[in-house]
């Protein structure tokens, strides 16, 4: 695979978005993402999945130019299904967010069960600024996590915001220095049960993530 690197270490799967510097989500990426999700769901004894970006950034999201040249309802539905399958996984899925995390990339992070975010990360759903809208469930996820009013403001304004703002809205679970993001995600993944209760995410935040962070 060219746009994604998939490895497993000590039972923890690492899905690295791999088109540096900005790890743009191209049509090729979405195709490979579907393949990787097939591989992941077929991998036995996987304890957790961590999603992160190669280099400084998580991902800047979809390639708008390419997307507008290739509008295809079938492909969109397919992409949506791929992200949904990540959300529906039984094993914990953790996004380790550094640098920019915008548009479809933020949607991917929102489909993860947990979000660990770097202090200097920049997040947002800027689609409306391009006269389109978030197309892969971002609106629903933001509304569920931060409320309808926040969902309206974020999607209509299309402004980017900082990690600390995302934390206060409930859109990320913890904010740490960028060097600690990936190690914290790995340590957290190691503590989590193989099958998590998604309706009660807060239990895991209080029981594992916050104590882990307090130790460092």
């Amino acid at each position, binding site marked *: 695979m060219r746009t994604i690197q998939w490895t497993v270490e000590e039972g923890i799967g690492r899905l690295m978005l791999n088109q540096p510097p900005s790890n743009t989500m191209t049509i090729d990426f979405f195709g490979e993402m579907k393949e990787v999700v097939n591989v992941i769901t077929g991998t036995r004894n996987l304890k957790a999945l961590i999603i992160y970006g190669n280099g400084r950034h998580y991902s800047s999201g979809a390639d708008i130019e390419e997307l507008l*040249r290739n509008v295809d*309802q079938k492909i969109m539905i397919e992409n949506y299904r791929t992200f949904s399958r990540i959300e529906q996984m039984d094993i914990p899925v953790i996004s380790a967010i550094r640098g920019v995390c915008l548009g479809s990339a933020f949607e991917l992070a929102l489909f993860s069960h947990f979000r660990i975010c770097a202090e200097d990360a920049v997040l947002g759903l800027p689609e*409306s*600024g391009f*006269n389109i*809208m978030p197309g892969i469930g971002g609106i*629903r996820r933001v509304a569920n996590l931060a409320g*309808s009013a926040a969902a309206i403001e974020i999607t209509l304004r299309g402004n980017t915001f900082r990690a600390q703002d995302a934390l206060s809205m409930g859109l990320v679970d913890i904010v740490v220095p960028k060097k600690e993001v990936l190690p914290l995600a790995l340590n957290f993944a190691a503590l989590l049960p193989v099958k998590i209760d998604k309706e009660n995410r807060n239990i895991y935040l209080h029981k594992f993530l916050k104590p882990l962070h307090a130790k460092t």
Partner: protein
Amino acid sequence: MERLDSITFEITNCIGIITMDLPPENYLPVPGFIPLKHFEKWIATENLKGLIFRGAGKHFSAGGNLGKIFEAGKDPQSIHRLVGEGIELLNFIQCLEIPVIAAINRVCFGGGLEIALACHMRIASENALLAFPEVNQNLMPGMGGTIRLPGVIGLPDTIKMLLGGDMLNAMEGQKLGLIDYIAPKDQAFEFSVNLMQKMTHDRPLKVINSIMKSLRNSRIMSRAEAMAEETRLFCSLAIDEAERRKSEKPA
């Protein structure tokens, strides 16, 4: 500016402003304080991108005119009709596919808070006060407040607010999630206009409608249905934008 009894409607920069104009407290004469027919006509104004509710003068609204309610209460049919009109109006507001903000200065009680709850966002001045005092008159909120409030602040605080009839200040309201932003003293309207402009300025109406529709779908449809509908809305916007870019490119 248009006026209908004690309500005015005006438009600035594609933003509609509805003012309850019965100062000082802006008591609403009837639950259906704007006849739906007129309201629909206002909303149909070309390129209307957002709507703000406010009260004239110092206060948002102290609520409904209870005298009218008790009088109508003598006749079951007439009280049902009266309240039904209010419910219909607030449901219509909540389902609008443009953002609706309640700009709350000072007093926002009872029916006033019901209106605010039907809006998509609530911005309160730091000196705002919120309450459902109906219980003190042996009544309860009758325009959907008991149904909307738990969705906003959760069941335990709803019970406390409805049965206690206690007043909350803006800070307490924000802590519960009832208030989305706190504006400086008496500045809720100015704050609301500013935020509304940031959300609607430069945004084509179709983008606004699509996002609002998708958000609403996510609340009322099954997940699969909402997903399919979001994809359809997204693709329609993307096709428009692709066309627009093509036609803009020099030959």
